[in-house]
């Protein structure tokens, strides 16, 4: 279970303090799939980064499974079972797909297992396992590899920041299956997905709308989604299934 208690986050720009998140409190129970939506610049990605520890809140507490993790590093949070898929996947020089999957899983894994992770994100494993994670890969390929590393990590809380962005050639349905499998494969796991896609919201338990740095709406999908349909926070997928 993840709890955010009175989380605020400020940045200074041009000698002015800007409040990105204002006194946000919420709870995400185990076994829940929560979609976070809301206008761009509203604080969604910042919230995700605060959960992973990439950013530290100006005030407030982050509690994970009863432990105060506010002061813990990214590494310590990863070890406690928090995973993170970046909106903009990071590129390396010389590090291969197989290396990243091995690091993610925390142990030596067979090529067959590494290939399974790639296949589940729609990549032909044999073509990718030895590729370097660099600019030679397209944005969509990098994005899927990013998701594969989170699958290999097998965290009890996985955070995905706009996972559908850039996945142009891949069936949207497959992405949805990835989240569903992740749910069934890891006991008591919970998933947070930042997305504007109604099709992803359709598989969620709860929906959280963040607007102007505050919780605008938060509740069960059945209650929240009807209020969002037709707005730009819940767009119909225009990606064709292949």
């Amino acid at each position, binding site marked *: 279970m993840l709890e955010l208690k009175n989380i605020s986050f400020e940045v200074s720009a041009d000698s002015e303090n800007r409040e990105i998140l204002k006194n946000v409190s919420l709870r995400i129970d185990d076994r829940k799939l929560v979609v976070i939506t809301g206008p761009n610049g509203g604080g969604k990605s910042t919230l995700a980064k605060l959960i*992973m520890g*990439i950013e530290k809140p100006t005030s407030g507490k982050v509690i994970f499974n009863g432990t105060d993790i506010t002061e813990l*590093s*990214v*590494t310590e949070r*990863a*070890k406690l079972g928090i*995973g*993170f898929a*970046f909106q903009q996947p*990071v590129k*390396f*020089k*010389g*590090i*291969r797909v197989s*290396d*990243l999957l091995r*690091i*993610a899983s*925390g142990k030596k894994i067979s090529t067959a297992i590494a290939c399974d992770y790639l296949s589940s994100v729609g990549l032909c494993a044999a073509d990718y396992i030895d590729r*370097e994670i660099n600019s030679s890969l397209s944005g969509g390929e990098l994005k899927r590899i990013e998701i594969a*590393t989170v699958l290999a*990590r097998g965290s009890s809380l996985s955070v995905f920041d706009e996972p559908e962005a850039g996945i142009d050639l891949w069936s949207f349905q497959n992405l949805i299956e990835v989240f569903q499998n992740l749910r069934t494969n890891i006991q008591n796991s919970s998933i947070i997905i930042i997305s504007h896609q109604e099709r992803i919201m359709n598989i969620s338990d709860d929906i959280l709308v963040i607007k102007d740095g505050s919780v605008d709406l938060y509740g069960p999908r059945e209650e929240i989604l009807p209020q969002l349909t037709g707005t730009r926070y819940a767009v119909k997928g225009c990606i064709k299934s292949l």
Partner: protein
Amino acid sequence: MAKLDDIQRRLLLEVADLHEIPEGAYNIRSNSESAGRRSTENIEIISKTDVSGLEVRIKPGTKNESVHIPVVMTRSGLKEVVYNDFFIGEDSDVLIVAGCGIDNCGNQDSEHDGIHRFYVGRGAHVRYVEKHYGSGEGKGKRILNPGTEVYMEENSSMEMEMVQIKGVVDTERVTKAELGEGAKLVVRERLMTHGDQRAVSRYDVSLNGRGSSADVVSRSVAKDDSFQKFDAKILGNTECYGHTECDSIIMDRGRILAVPGLEANSVDASLVHEAAIGKIAGEQIIKLMTLGLSEQEAEEQIINGFLR
């Protein structure tokens, strides 16, 4: 390899990946003496008579054969200059593995200066691997100054892999190449310096023949207080293509100087230089930390990949 002790064997493993006596032709030089040599039907290794060093003669048409000529030094205070010449026959295709490992646990400097000259015959292809490694806790420096000269005939090709990852205190590497018509040279250099080490790598490549090309790429990491200089000069004297690249990571108080040198002496020469120096990108470290690595482990993985 009965003449070698454990330290010498370890050095041999580091510089030539050799656990046992290699296949094919070889000469193992240990503390300025030959610790074993074998010539084959197509590859002859003979000692020079005027200076210290070897002549390696590879018959035309020799395919898929290899020559290993590793050097190990474990005696403190030893200084040597060795001249090795390679004559690579036309249309042959061979692997040459050189390299030097120095273990200096004494207080006197140890130095090995290997001067290698390659005469690559028409249509021949050579893959050359050279690794340098130093170890030992003594105050004596471990110094390596390799000199490489490459003379390439028509349509020959050479891939050079130069690696110096650990323990060499001072190195000054000079590589000169002259390429004939259609000749192709590819250099991949990987270098890591730490402590107060200093490494200078200089290239002087002349593209003399029409259609010749050179691609010289250095990837390096400078840690602690170390200093590196990458000085790559390509001369395009005719219709040709030349590319040099220096891609470096600096850490701690490390310093790197990249000096691009392109000289086009013909309107048909096409020459490119790229250089990028910077610290490890913070986002790379954070990505690996989200996968459970500590900051230090993340840095190690990034550097290992970078220097692979």
